[in-house]
């Protein structure tokens, strides 16, 4: 059969292994979920056997647990520890190197020798996070060519969720259905087969390498029910008016309260798939003739983040927590036209003290006095 | 010591705006017209404080003498403002020099004379204090902000 973009076909469990080796033969690094002994994170895999078959997870505030069974499922865990930004916008990036030359210096742009990447197992929340980062890194006059170059070469194979862990709340943020943003979309069926849909030419070309058959009605129904099940499995919700709610409650006493627990460790910013703050470091070797500029991930929770001559502008943990949450849920709209939160819930699961972003917004709502006269509601 | 013609000048100075005319007349009774050439002192640090001044024109510098160095100017007072409050509070001695930075026209008000009148006429006393208080509060606040500025702004000789 020859599928078109948007039409559905099925390939077998073995077909996934074939898919991985085709991608590798084409020169892609295949990045996929992988259980590394501690957690399931996105890492480069060599074969489909590296996928976390039989692994499942559960999460609560400050707690993530993995368990193994005999299930043939390869994609039964929720999200990987960090999103795909680890690969699209790596924690350390060489921006340029420079050599002394005469009285000046010569700037050398790094050659991008990285192999293109195929992301296998991208969840709904992560697709939206990638779309958010696509947008923020391509602002007019302020674009980031490193991210855009990696992104352009990347191939996205999404997998629709059929379950949620308790920290998930993507239903409050346009999830968990996957409708766009992928080259290939997969639904892992109970039989071990995969329902596949190409979303682009790249995806179609890939599918053409596999043995495909038409799906039957039951398989279509099973796939269609997966996102519903994932939605039904969510108990947390994010207040839909968080943007204005937070904007008019900057001086709430709640910020001091959450600061009593917040360690300002920055875990939330490290696992959040949309956080993008970085710092820049200029280094030189011992001879002083070779210099490099590196960009590395940074967090608004560090005391130095808002440091100017005279000291840090956000001394209080309450101010730093407030900065993070109001940026993510409120000011992001003014900057980039959408919320910065995709509802993945990682910040809740990986916070050592289990601070819950949805709970904090609900607490603000509880004491909110409503829009004041003269303010936009 | 009634000086003809000073009444309107006193009444029009911002410090006495809105004052009851009867009270104003008592005040005028303690007034004198003064002119200071540039560099001349209105009063000297340590001397008995027995006047205050309504500055009508010119700039008055507040200079402080500290042992071991030349005196230092810390503030100037503009036309429309008043200068001198030590006459109101013991030990009734000036805590700084006041010196004309340019030609200064002022009306001096005899503090000793006015103090006695205020003691006897509490309403008059209240009117005077009511006007002094906000000015001193404002100057205190401004000087606190100046301390913030000096502590936070860069500058030479740190």
């Amino acid at each position: 059969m020859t599928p078109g973009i948007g039409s559905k076909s099925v390939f077998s469990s073995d077909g996934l292994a074939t898919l991985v080796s085709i991608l590798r033969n084409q020169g892609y690094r295949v990045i996929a979920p992988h259980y590394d002994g501690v957690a399931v994170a996105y890492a480069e895999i060599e074969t489909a056997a590296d996928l976390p078959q039989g692994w499942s997870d559960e999460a609560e505030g400050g707690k993530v647990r993995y368990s193994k069974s005999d299930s043939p499922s390869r994609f039964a865990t929720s999200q990987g520890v960090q999103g795909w930004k680890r690969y699209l916008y790596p924690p350390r990036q060489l921006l340029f190197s420079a050599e002394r030359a005469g009285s000046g210096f010569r700037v050398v742009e790094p050659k991008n020798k990285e192999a293109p990447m195929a992301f296998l197992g991208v969840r709904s929340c992560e697709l939206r996070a990638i779309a958010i980062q696509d947008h923020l890194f391509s602002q007019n006059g302020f674009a980031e060519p490193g991210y855009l170059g990696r992104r352009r070469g990347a191939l996205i194979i999404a997998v629709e969720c059929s379950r949620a862990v308790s920290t998930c709340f993507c239903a409050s943020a346009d999830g968990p259905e996957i409708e766009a943003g992928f080259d290939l979309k997969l639904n892992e069926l109970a039989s071990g087969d995969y329902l596949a849909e190409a979303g682009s030419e790249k995806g179609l070309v890939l599918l053409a390498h596999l043995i495909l058959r038409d799906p039957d009605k039951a398989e279509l129904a099973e796939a269609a029910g997966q996102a519903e099940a994932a939605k039904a499995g969510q108990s947390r919700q994010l207040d839909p008016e968080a943007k204005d709610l937070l904007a008019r409650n900057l001086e709430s006493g709640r910020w001091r309260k959450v600061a009593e627990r917040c360690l300002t460790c920055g875990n939330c910013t490290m696992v959040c798939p949309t956080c993008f703050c970085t710092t820049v470091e200029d280094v030189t070797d011992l001879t002083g003739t070779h210099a490099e500029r590196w960009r590395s991930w940074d967090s608004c929770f560090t005391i130095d983040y808002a440091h100017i001559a005279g000291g840090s502008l956000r001394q209080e943990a309450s101010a730093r927590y407030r900065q993070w949450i109001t940026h993510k849920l409120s000011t992001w709209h003014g900057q980039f036209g959408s919320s910065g939160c995709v509802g993945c819930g990682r910040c809740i699961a990986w916070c050592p003290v289990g601070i819950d972003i949805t709970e904090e917004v609900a607490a603000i709502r509880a004491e909110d006095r409503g829009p004041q006269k003269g303010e936009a509601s | 010591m009634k000086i003809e013609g000073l009444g309107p000048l006193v009444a029009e100075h911002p410090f006495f705006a809105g004052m009851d005319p009867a009270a104003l007349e008592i005040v005028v009774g303690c007034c004198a017209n003064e002119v200071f050439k540039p560099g001349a002192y209105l009063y000297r640090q340590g001397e008995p404080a027995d006047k205050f001044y309504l500055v009508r024109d010119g700039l008055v510098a507040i200079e402080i003498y500290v042992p071991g160095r030349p005196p230092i100017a810390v503030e100037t007072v503009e036309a429309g403002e008043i200068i001198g409050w030590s006459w109101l509070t013991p030990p009734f001695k000036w805590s700084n020099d006041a010196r004309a930075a340019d030609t200064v026209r002022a009306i001096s008000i005899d503090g000793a004379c006015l103090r006695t009148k205020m003691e006897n006429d509490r309403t008059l006393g209240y009117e005077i204090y009511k006007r002094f208080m906000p000015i001193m509060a404002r100057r205190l606040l401004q000087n606190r902000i100046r301390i913030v500025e000096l502590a936070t702004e860069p500058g030479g000789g740190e």
Partner: protein
Amino acid sequence: MDGHPLSHGLPPDPMLPRQFRIAKVKAEVPGVFTWHLTPLDGGGFAYQAGQFNMLYVFGVGEVPISISGDPRDGSKLIHTIRVAGSVTKVMAKMKAGEVVGVRGPFGRPWPIEAAYGSDVIFVTGTIGLAPLRPLIHEVLHQREQFGKVVICYGSRGTGDILYEDDLHHWRGRFDVNVHVTVHSAPAGYRGRVGSVAAAVRVARITGDSTTAFVCRSESMTKPAVDALHERGVTSDRIWVTLERNMRCGVGLCGHCQFGPTFMCKDGPVYRFDEIEPLFSVREV
């Protein structure tokens, strides 16, 4: 992927510096010096008053520094720098002939057209005159567009007045009023002593038809704005420039955020009414 941000070519990398030679080093007030820079590649360097560059010292680091020259002078790029940290400390030791990296110009410039037809008052102090000088130059180039022009400048003492020659020169013009206020002075000093806000209170401007350009540290911006309010200058006619930690200058590192704005692209110049609510929230 039509219309997708990635469907056109990759943009140039805004993180690569351009080389400029230090043509001249001039000592200003203690702890402050000025560089005259010329591009190694012989090209131009247009900028607008109020903008800044990221200046790079080989292997040491980069700092955001306002441009302080006359935007109409294309012969040299002028930066006045105060020693404040590890990078500027190294900069203070550099000599004419050495080469630095420059990225920019960045930032929202002073909106000179906003002041057309009104009186103009500049309120600044210490090194604040550096980011304001290009605007003063431009206003004087178009002097006929404005009513009264008043410059209020404050410093610690008479020994650290920045650009004293320029202030004297401007004071000498019959169409500019210059008020210099110092925090302390030797006895016998004939000028104003106090805060620069005091000079604003007595400046000869008509409040309701005045545009104010304020360049002070953030802690001193509020007192200056308060003094302007007292004179009847409303917040929508007061322009300020602020400062934040900047690591990239191009809206990518996130550090310079001030409420919903990125100070490197939505600022550092702001109209005060746009940010007035944020100003009163602690540590925002």
